């Protein structure tokens, strides 16, 4: 027809035809990225989408574990995306879920999973879910498992526990006479023993004995403070009632901060060091002890010629305690078929099975078959501090709390200033009270 009457191809018929053709394309090409984008269907329904926040040593270990999964399930079975750590990550996870485009599985800190669950962003995980891939609640470290339970529901499957630990420089400590005949650090579990150890190290280094990052760094001062604070018998949580009440024990707060300041004044504890600087001082033998999360094992191992060890933070007050958090797997809220649910659980199981790879990065596995395995117990120095997980203290739940949160930033900043001797313990507490006021008074938006 067109050949007979070329003029019949009017603009209108051309446009109509074009729209029809585009429509056919969209219907026919459900697998094409363009069509999937237009109608909002998943690009590849068989592919599992996994979001996480791991960089550095953790990031490369997670990639190894992901490769372990794709080896079994095929190259296109997994799409893993890494986002920047902290608040931006949780904002993205929340908005994607509210916008109905969440990943199938995501990583969350245990302390951040609770506010997410309160905000209806996460789906609870049932015993049947666990059983579908051969897991049960008894497979996990009881302390960690109990910590994730919220309103009687399981909201997250823990991968690890990552407590604050004490790194020590083997050479410096042996010169200070703190190493026993087996090459381990002698127990320092009371204040007098610890302070005389600090004095001995200070004599060897001619300066600092222990380092804690406190410049451009808010999380570390908070971790150190919380660890020591919860070692005191009978203290109340810093905040309670989902962050609506400031319930910090003022005497205990003053005691801990005053003690840290006294170490600074004696020259044992650094006055002002950033994150990298605090490490460097211990790594280069200019300090004996260094307090940080166990993940810094990767950095320490990469230093040539450094002999170091790791132990739980000594019990300086009444009872052992270590500030900690856990990386967990969560299921963001979305419509799932039973198969998709099982696929997500299968992925989590596969990651847990590779917990030993993860443990090499310092984290203490939450999965008991790995934690109790001979292979893990043979890992050095991991086995030396694994007991810290038993005394893990998680940040009190609050809608603005958890790892890398507004709460940690606010309180940690003042504690950092106190360590710089820029403010008194009372000044720090009143600044914290002032700055948290808006959050304490605001009803949770979740």
């Amino acid at each position, binding site marked *: 027809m067109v050949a007979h009457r070329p003029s019949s191809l009017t603009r209108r018929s051309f446009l109509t035809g074009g729209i029809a053709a585009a429509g056919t394309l969209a219907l026919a090409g459900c697998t094409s990225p363009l069509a999937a984008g237009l109608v909002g269907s998943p690009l590849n329904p068989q592919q599992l989408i996994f979001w996480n926040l791991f960089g550095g040593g953790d990031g490369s270990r997670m990639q190894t574990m992901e490769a372990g999964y794709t080896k079994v399930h095929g190259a296109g079975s997994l799409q893993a995306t890494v986002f920047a750590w902290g*608040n*931006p990550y*949780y*904002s993205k996870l*929340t*908005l994607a879920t*509210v916008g109905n485009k969440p990943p199938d599985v995501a990583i969350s800190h245990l302390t951040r999973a609770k506010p997410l669950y309160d*905000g*209806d*962003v996460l789906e609870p995980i049932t015993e049947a879910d666990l059983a579908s891939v051969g897991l049960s609640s008894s497979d996990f470290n009881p302390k960690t498992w109990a910590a994730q339970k919220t309103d009687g529901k399981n909201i997250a499957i823990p991968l690890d526990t990552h407590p604050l630990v004490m790194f020590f420089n083997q050479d410096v400590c042996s010169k200070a006479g703190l190493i026993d005949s087996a090459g381990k650090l002698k127990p320092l579990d009371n204040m007098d023993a610890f302070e005389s150890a600090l004095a001995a190290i200070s004599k060897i280094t001619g300066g600092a004995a222990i380092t804690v990052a406190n410049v*451009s760094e808010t999380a570390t001062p908070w971790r150190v403070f919380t660890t020591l604070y919860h070692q005191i018998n009978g203290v109340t949580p810093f905040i309670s009632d989902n962050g609506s009440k400031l319930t910090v024990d003022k005497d205990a707060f003053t005691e801990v901060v005053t003690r840290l300041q006294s170490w600074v004044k004696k020259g044992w504890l650094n006055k002002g060091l950033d994150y990298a600087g605090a490490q460097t001082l211990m790594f280069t033998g200019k300090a004996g002890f260094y307090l940080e999360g166990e993940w810094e094992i990767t950095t320490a191992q990469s230093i040539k010629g450094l002999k170091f060890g790791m132990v739980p933070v000594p019990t300086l007050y009444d009872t052992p305690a270590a500030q900690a958090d856990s990386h967990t797997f969560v299921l963001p809220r979305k419509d799932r078929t039973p198969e998709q649910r099982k696929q997500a659980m299968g992925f989590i199981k596969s990651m847990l099975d590779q917990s030993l790879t993860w443990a090499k990065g310092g984290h203490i596995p939450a999965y008991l078959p790995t934690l109790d395995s001979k292979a893990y117990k043979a890992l050095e120095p991991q086995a030396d501090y694994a007991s810290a997980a038993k005394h893990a203290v998680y940040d009190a739940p609050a*809608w*603005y709390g958890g790892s890398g949160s*507004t709460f940690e930033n606010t309180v940690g*900043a003042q504690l950092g200033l106190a360590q710089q001797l820029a403010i008194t313990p009372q000044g720090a507490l009143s600044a914290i009270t002032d700055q948290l006021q*808006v959050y304490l008074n*605001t*009803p949770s*938006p*979740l």
Partner: protein
Amino acid sequence: MTTAEAVNRPAMAVPKKASARQRSMIGARNRRGAWLFLAPFGIFYLAFLLGPTVWMLISSFFNTSTVRPGLGSFAGFANYAEMLTRADFWSAMWHTLQFTIYTVPPLVMVAFVFAVLTNRVRRGQWFFRLAFFLPFILPSATISLIWVFIFTPGSGLWATIVSWFGVAPGAGVLGDPNTAMIGIAIATLWWTLGFNFVLYLAGLQEIPRDLYEAAAVDGATAWGQIRYITIPMLSRTTTLVILLQIIASLKIFDQVYLMTAGGPGISTQVALGLITNTGFTDNRIGAASAASVLLFIVIVAIAVIRQLFDRSAARKAA
């Protein structure tokens, strides 16, 4: 808006004339056609600009949550009271203003100078047009990466050049609370200069050449020609450029978020950064809306003040 007025005005004016029913019918048909043509834009405008703005005004009086449907409980003016008494809100407002003060004068003046110089080039003008405009087409993420690279403490381009002059680089431009905002302003200057440059260049090419010839015949110097011909003839362009620039600078967000994330501390946190944190990290859309309304009022006030200032200047000139 301008388009809508331009199309509607003849149609509205028609029934006034006592011509006939026929004409008003044509008017009605025209009007329908106009609305049809406006519809695609109008729907987007309603859905993505007017709708959210109305929602913002309403939710600023409620404890609205990001993750819950509905408005939440009524808050009255509590969100406004909270924002107006928060020290970090005022510091974010000041940083927004500070950025505007740092960027508007150089972006207008440097763009003008480069446009005048480019306009004098006889051959290869395309090269200069391209060179000055090219950064503008880059996404903010790209320019942020480039400048974070340049400002890398110790080993970056900036630190290297500065160290030739015997200055110790220290924490880097973006790491120091006193210079971080200047670093962001420099990156922005390089990035958005091209837009104002093109507007000025277009304005320059509309000035009749014979004015310059006449001036040259009368013995005017090159500077005199710029002072008495170019600048007055470009006054309308300048008005437009300054207004657009002020509004663009007050909306600063991307570069700060990507280059410093508001740091060090909150020393470069700007109003939109605070609003984003409140709305999407704290999940408090209600409080974030109140902050947005306050910023909106400030931007409108500045635009109106500028307009009044211009009008009085024009009256004086006339």
